[in-house]
């Protein structure tokens, strides 16, 4: 493998010497990963505070003067967009993708380190532009995270003059950042795998991130053009999405545009986006379960094919977000079928996680607790997706709190539980320190139980018919008093969960300095990142010689082996060959 030989020469990688080149303008994938992750977590905390303020209004209407209807809709919008794009996407791909891809496939770095560095700085710029929108006249946009025109750019929606412009510009910059990072991840996976690391020997974490990145590279352009077109509609008066309509009592200058065109473009991005978040989480959780159950992932090859199938299918289900949008009703037949088909590979993944636990040797470590918590919430959120995906069942539930409960369970809580599990899993490698196991477990229990208390009741409020995105429910005959009591309960649970996250921050920050020194491979894991000569890995990752891979990533508890794991770097023909599917004992 020629490319490996070149990359193996150590002098190719000059270790940076100054503070600035090491930590600020760094081209080291590990530093960039930490920059991405810290920024994403910081901006995620902003979004967490925003959700707390929304819940205050819903639980205790009018108790807080500063939460006016405009402010409420601004909080809703910014919370959603930050969480989906600037936290989840950035943390899973920019953070974990950056850190883990080179280490897990045995590369010294990403193939384009300079581009990788630019990717982070563009991401940071997009975050700053987004944050600036809180401070412009009129404030940030309150159009809802879906930014549907015409209302997103018309008076009557908060932030219709400046807030929406900054939002669209920020998204544009984010997509540029993502593209630079994404091209890097894909190329690195395809070109820089070390000797012996065939595609079918890659850990599922890498598979999840790899396929998610391809989805992102294909899906984000749809968001990019729709943002650009809306920007033109707003600033130059074009009419891509704007029909003739009344605004402020006067006929607008627009004519002939289609609001539904925007929705198609948005969801052509928006649905794959669900899997851009979900697939890395699927991959990571597979590795967490396997490692901490000391058992090979069950049905590895099926898992890879399921990831690929989900990736492909995710591009032909988008209009299930639009069953009541006014698009031609016959579309409903097609999109309901594709949407429910995607449930099959998704269910296979769930079965295989569960079957990995079966006959395992389950260590209930903090990462494992989060992984099991994920299975529970993901099963719950996935099953409620069968309501909303099946077109006619969606009719009464669309635009109600059922939808809010569903997507928070499936793409809010579930990936976040995986993220926490992943941080607890790789923290010893990243920092060289252990964290407090006790605090980590408290963090898990309170977060897991707290979030379930938030989102389970929301489904029932939705079945009752309570609309989402309402500043207040006012008096409505079919809504009983008890629904408001439930809203109070949900608010208390939400504030509780928000405060609990302090345990996580305190644990990490304290352990950074005071944690006990970590063993290089504290979990007894097989994958390459745990086999580095230094912990944390130094610049270039592997010292003088790149690792060579002899086996798949899941040789746990191989019969006859001395220890209950065989790292990928250990030669030998015993175990399973994931390239051919044959097993030798």
């Amino acid at each position: 493998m020629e490319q490996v030989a070149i990359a193996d020469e150590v002098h190719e990688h000059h270790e940076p010497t100054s503070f600035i080149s090491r930590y600020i303008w760094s081209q080291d994938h590990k530093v960039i990963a930490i920059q991405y992750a810290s920024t994403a977590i910081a901006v995620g905390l902003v979004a967490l505070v925003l959700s707390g303020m929304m819940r205050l209004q819903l639980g205790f209407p009018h108790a807080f003067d500063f939460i006016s209807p405009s402010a409420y809709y601004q909080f809703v919008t910014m919370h959603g967009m930050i969480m989906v794009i600037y936290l989840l996407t950035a943390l899973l791909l920019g953070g974990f993708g950056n850190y883990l891809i080179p280490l897990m496939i045995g590369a010294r770095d990403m193939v384009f380190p300079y581009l990788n560095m630019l990717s982070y700085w563009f991401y940071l710029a997009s975050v700053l532009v987004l944050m600036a929108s809180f401070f412009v006249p009129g404030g940030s946009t309150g159009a809802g995270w879906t930014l549907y025109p015409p209302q997103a750019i018309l008076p009557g929606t908060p932030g219709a003059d400046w807030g929406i412009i900054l939002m669209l510009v920020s998204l544009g910059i984010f997509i540029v950042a993502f593209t630079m990072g994404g091209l890097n991840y894909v190329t690195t996976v395809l070109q820089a795998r070390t000797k012996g690391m065939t595609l079918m020997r890659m850990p599922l974490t890498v598979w999840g991130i790899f396929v998610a990145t391809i989805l992102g590279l294909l899906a984000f352009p749809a968001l990019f053009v729709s943002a650009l077109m809306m920007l033109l509609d707003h600033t130059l008066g074009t009419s891509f999405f704007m029909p003739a309509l009344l605004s402020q009592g006067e006929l607008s200058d627009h004519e002939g545009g289609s609001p539904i065109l925007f929705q198609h473009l948005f969801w052509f991005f928006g649905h794959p986006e669900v899997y851009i978040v979900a697939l890395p989480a699927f991959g990571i959780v597979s590795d967490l379960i396997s490692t901490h159950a000391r058992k090979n992932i069950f049905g590895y090859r099926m898992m890879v094919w399921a990831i690929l199938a989900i990736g492909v299918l995710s591009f032909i289900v988008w209009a299930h977000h639009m069953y009541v949008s006014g698009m031609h009703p016959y579309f409903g037949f097609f999109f309901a079928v594709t949407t429910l088909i995607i449930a099959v590979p998704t269910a296979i993944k769930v079965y295989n996680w569960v079957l990995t636990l079966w006959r395992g040797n389950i260590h209930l470590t903090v990462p494992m607790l989060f992984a099991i918590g994920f299975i529970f919430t993901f099963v719950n959120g996935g099953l409620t997706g069968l309501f909303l995906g099946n077109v006619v069942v969606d009719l009464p539930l669309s635009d109600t709190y059922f939808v809010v409960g569903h997507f928070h369970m499936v793409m809010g809580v579930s990936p976040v539980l995986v993220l926490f599990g992943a941080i607890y899993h790789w923290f010893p490698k990243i920092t060289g320190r252990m964290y407090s196991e006790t605090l980590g477990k408290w963090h898990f229990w309170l977060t897991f139980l707290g979030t379930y208390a938030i989102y389970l009741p929301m489904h029932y409020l939705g079945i009752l018919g309570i609309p989402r995105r309402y500043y207040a429910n006012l008096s409505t005959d079919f809504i009983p008093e008890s629904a408001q009591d439930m809203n109070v309960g949900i608010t208390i649970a939400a504030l509780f969960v928000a405060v609990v996250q302090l345990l996580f921050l305190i644990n990490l920050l304290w352990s950074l300095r005071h944690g006990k020194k970590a063993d290089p491979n504290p979990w007894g894991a097989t994958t390459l990142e745990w086999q580095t000569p230094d912990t944390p890995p130094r610049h270039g990752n592997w010292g003088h010689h790149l690792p060579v891979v002899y086996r798949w990533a899941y040789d746990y508890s191989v019969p006859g082996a001395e220890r209950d794991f065989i790292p990928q770097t250990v030669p030998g023909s015993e175990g399973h060959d994931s390239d051919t599917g044959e097993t030798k004992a």
Partner: protein
Amino acid sequence: MAIALVLIALVIATVLFHIFSPWWFTPIASNWDMIDGTVDLTVWVTGFVFVAVNLFVAYAVIRFRHKAGARAAYEPENKKLEGWLTALTTVGIMALLAPGLFVWGKFVAVPEDAMDVEVVGQQWGWSYRFPGPDGVLGASDPRFFAGDNPLGLDPADAAGQDDILINGAELRLPLDVPVRVLARSKDVLHNFAVPQFRVKMDMVPGMVTHFWFTPTRTGEFDVLCMELCGIGHYVMRGRVTIVPETDFQAWLADKPSFADTQAVAAREAAAGEVHYATCGACHGAMGEGNPLMNAPRIAGLDKHYLARQIDNFRTGKRGANPDDSFGQQMAAMANVLPDEAAIASVSAYIASLPHQRADADPSLAGDPRRGAGIYQNCAVCHGDQGQGIWNMGAPRLAGMDPGYMATQLKHFREGIRGTHRDDQHGQQMVAMASILGGDQAIDDVIAYIATLQ
């Protein structure tokens, strides 16, 4: 181990919550029982999977949790098991999908004999139109939107002349008659939803969307907007009343046709001068208002707003509350006007009077800078210069009496004005005024309005 017990407890708690939760579908009032059936089927299938998978996980954790000396099994694949699970899942999915698509097939096929009704959404209210005796809805186009033609009907289209317009809070529909709803929006996306009917559809400017249902139960039902449409989204309310067909016909016969509304609109302002004599005694010859009589300035208000308020006073939607003594006086005076034509002409006359700013009120103690922040919520309807926006039914605020406006805000907040069920705009003001925390906030926003030209 704890996690296994907690999973079992959560499964039990979820099932119990499902069984005992007081929150479930509202009793259905349309023909779409089949939709409820598909939901029930989905609940059973997904409920079974939820319980089975999670209990299996719990059992696996209990049985295979780490014990000293234990070792996991080594089983990379099991093609037979994987095949079975895939097949079973596929069968389960088909069992959900087939009935779903069957019912959707019913939903997309509108019955031949369905009655048409048009629903028009706008920020933040509803209006309706029936096709009239000819059974055909006349053409409409955004360029015809105007105060006298709020639905934008084409005046030249003969088919539209007999269309019956329902401008207000309530739509009535006949029991057991299939209805095809043709939905249209004047400005942004909206969604016409009645939870008891189960079906809903977005309304999109630039196109007409549709859906159908048959009301099966008499009664009154809330109409909610279910597509985010700006900051008044949550106050965009209406009411559908289902009545026996004969009652429906009687109700409809009473409503004006498009041609009728155009005739009323053509009333000359001059004809209103006679009627205005009574008004002028309190409101002043030029409508400038008289604080001593507690009569606010009315010159500068839009004629449709004036006509609606006079009608509200006459029909008890305003000025009926004993805590609103001046409103009660006005209700008595409004009844002096003989008919709709008189209301239309006197409103047109008042609207023709020159607008002048009210005098500054030295008793105002508000802080206009703080008020500016609050006013952002008002501006979406009343305009950023307080000029009023006809389409929103929102009157001019700039230059009007500060003291009067402050009193009205308090009345809205305290439910003295705007709580009548047919006063759609009043209800919105009640909701909006409730965000004003105390009298200081009212003083602040009035002080800001006083700075607007």
